[in-house]
């Protein structure tokens, strides 16, 4: 996204001073190319390395060459049962991660939108107070309250379930804050027009507020999906069953398991393939929602 904005700033032509303009363009592109190179290079290196055998990787480290093992490594990463109990495959981990990512993002959006709706539109006695209480939870991230959270989830019998994985994470002060600010910028007359048009609180929320917020929803969805996808600490704590592993924590697990093929070597090829797979969904989400994001920004007016 940063690359795109920079590129669009660099494009407008200044026809009269064409020479200087060309130099600045060269300079801009040099910066862009360097940045892109630094970002893509490690990924490329990993991709090439997945074509080697584990033994090769242990001996020579990451390498640029190309051997015939790439397909086999990806296939093993995706479909071969792994772990101590042989209960998990790459596809299963991918699915777990997707459930966590979507559940996390959608849950956060639903909860924070409803909270913001209540705070902004209803004459609650302590609305402002409630908002600041919610806001101060920013000071209490999961890491601080990890023991009580674990205790609560455990005693509810939600350990090793998707609900246990997602629910403790979906309360979001940031989301509530962004939606609150957005709702406050919606003109009061729109609310009044809807009241006269006979739209009750629920209809107003669904028919008017949600469609108007689609830009915000897309933006928060991107951020929250990636955030949820990258969760490591909480899934590590709450899921002991290997069938519940997410990609992000599963990769490490696989490296720890030693290769079965003769020598006792960690399965680096498979791990690298998995880490590449783990990158794809967040990238797709960003690319997909980016077009929405821009569309929402340019088309909607309040």
């Amino acid at each position: 996204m940063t690359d795109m904005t920079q590129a669009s700033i660099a494009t407008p032509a200044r026809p009269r001073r064409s020479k200087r303009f060309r130099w600045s363009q060269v300079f801009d592109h040099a910066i862009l190319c360097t940045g892109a190179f630094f970002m893509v290079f490690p990924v490329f290196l990993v991709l090439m390395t997945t074509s080697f055998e584990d033994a090769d990787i242990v001996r020579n480290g990451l390498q640029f060459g190309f051997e015939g093992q790439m397909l086999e490594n990806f296939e093993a990463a995706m479909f071969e049962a792994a772990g101590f109990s042989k209960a998990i495959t790459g596809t299963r981990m991918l699915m777990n991660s997707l459930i966590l990512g979507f559940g996390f993002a959608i849950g956060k959006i639903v909860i924070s939108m409803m909270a913001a709706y209540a705070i902004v539109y209803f004459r609650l006695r302590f609305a402002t107070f409630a908002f600041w209480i919610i806001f101060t939870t920013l000071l209490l991230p999961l890491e601080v309250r990890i023991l009580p959270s674990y205790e609560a989830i455990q005693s509810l019998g939600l350990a090793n379930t998707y609900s246990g994985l997602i629910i403790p994470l979906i309360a979001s002060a940031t989301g509530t804050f962004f939606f609150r600010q957005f709702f406050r910028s919606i003109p009061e007359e729109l609310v009044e027009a809807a009241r006269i048009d006979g739209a009750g609180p629920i209809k107003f929320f669904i028919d008017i507020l949600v469609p108007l917020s689609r830009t915000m929803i897309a933006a928060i969805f991107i951020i929250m999906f990636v955030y949820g996808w990258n969760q490591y600490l909480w899934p590590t704590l709450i899921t002991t069953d290997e069938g519940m592993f997410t990609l992000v924590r599963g990769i490490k697990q696989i490296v720890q398991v030693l290769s079965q093929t003769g020598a006792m070597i960690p399965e680096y090829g498979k791990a690298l393939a998995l880490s590449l797979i783990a990158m794809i969904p967040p990238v797709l989400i960003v690319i997909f929602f980016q077009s929405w994001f821009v569309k929402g920004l340019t088309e909607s007016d309040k």
Partner: protein
Amino acid sequence: MAQVTLDRVRKTYPNGFEAVQPCSVEIPDGELVVLVGPSGCGKSTLLRMIAGLEDITDGALSIGTDVVNDKDPADRNIAMVFQNYALYPHMSVAKNMGYGLKNRGASKAEIDAKVQEAARILNLGDYLDRRPSQLSGGQRQRVAMGRAIVRDPELFLFDEPLSNLDAKLRNQMRIEIRALQQRLGVTSVYVTHDQVEAMTMADRIIVLNAGRVEQIGTPTEIYERPASTFVAGFMGAPPMNLMTAALVSGQLQVGGETKLPLTPPAVATDEVLVGYRPEDVRLGGDGSVVLDVQIIEELGANRLLHGQLGGQAFSISIGKDEQAQVGPQPITLPQDRVHFFHPERGTRL
């Protein structure tokens, strides 16, 4: 269609500010009443109380035969046009107009028919699939009107609907709204701060000042017989001239020397406020009253002469064919066009 009755309707905010003092008025069926006044006079508050968007502190409001104080806006069978139109930005024109009907459980065919009919009346037929952001200001205004008329309400409420339009469009829409209201025969309450809109559109005008009703009357009554100096100054452009005149032995005097050839009203005060509409004063005369003209404003259809009469500001309006120069000019003050007001209370004498 319904008549609207306000019986000592009052609004006091929790902080003690009295936005609208007790106001009683009866609006007969089909009448267009304009609430006019400067910013902060309580005209919008009064309208919003009629709409149900603001609680009524005291008094009774009836639409038709029912007292509707405690009814929801949606149940009052009203429609409102807002200053910024308040169209739903994400809905097409047709959906915007049909939303109220949809919420009332009308069938799709019925909504379609009514929206089509409204679009035909308002010349919006080609725009039904567009979004509000793709329309011009005047078109958005029409959509807002359309949203009001599809519902067949008993009462239209307009909250400064034309103030976001440019001058030319405003004149045009003013006539359109008036024509539409007369054709549909729906009782209407129209809020504006523009006295031209008030004069041209109203069957009756309610002039508000600082939460108080100053005068209720037809445009002609308001203009010809303003009940107070506030009404006199607010309605009419340029505003009415108001001079403080001393009553010296049955003679009105301005600035100590100029005697006004007028019969004074029978009052016990030694001063009165003398009011004249600029167009009621004629240029020329016997020289007993002289206006010291300082500035001449050319308006095309007429000219405004601004100057001093007995040391007080005074303006007159003359036809485009009359000649005028800067400097002292004799003027005539006709007895039958004078307005007298109480010097302290500002009420008409």
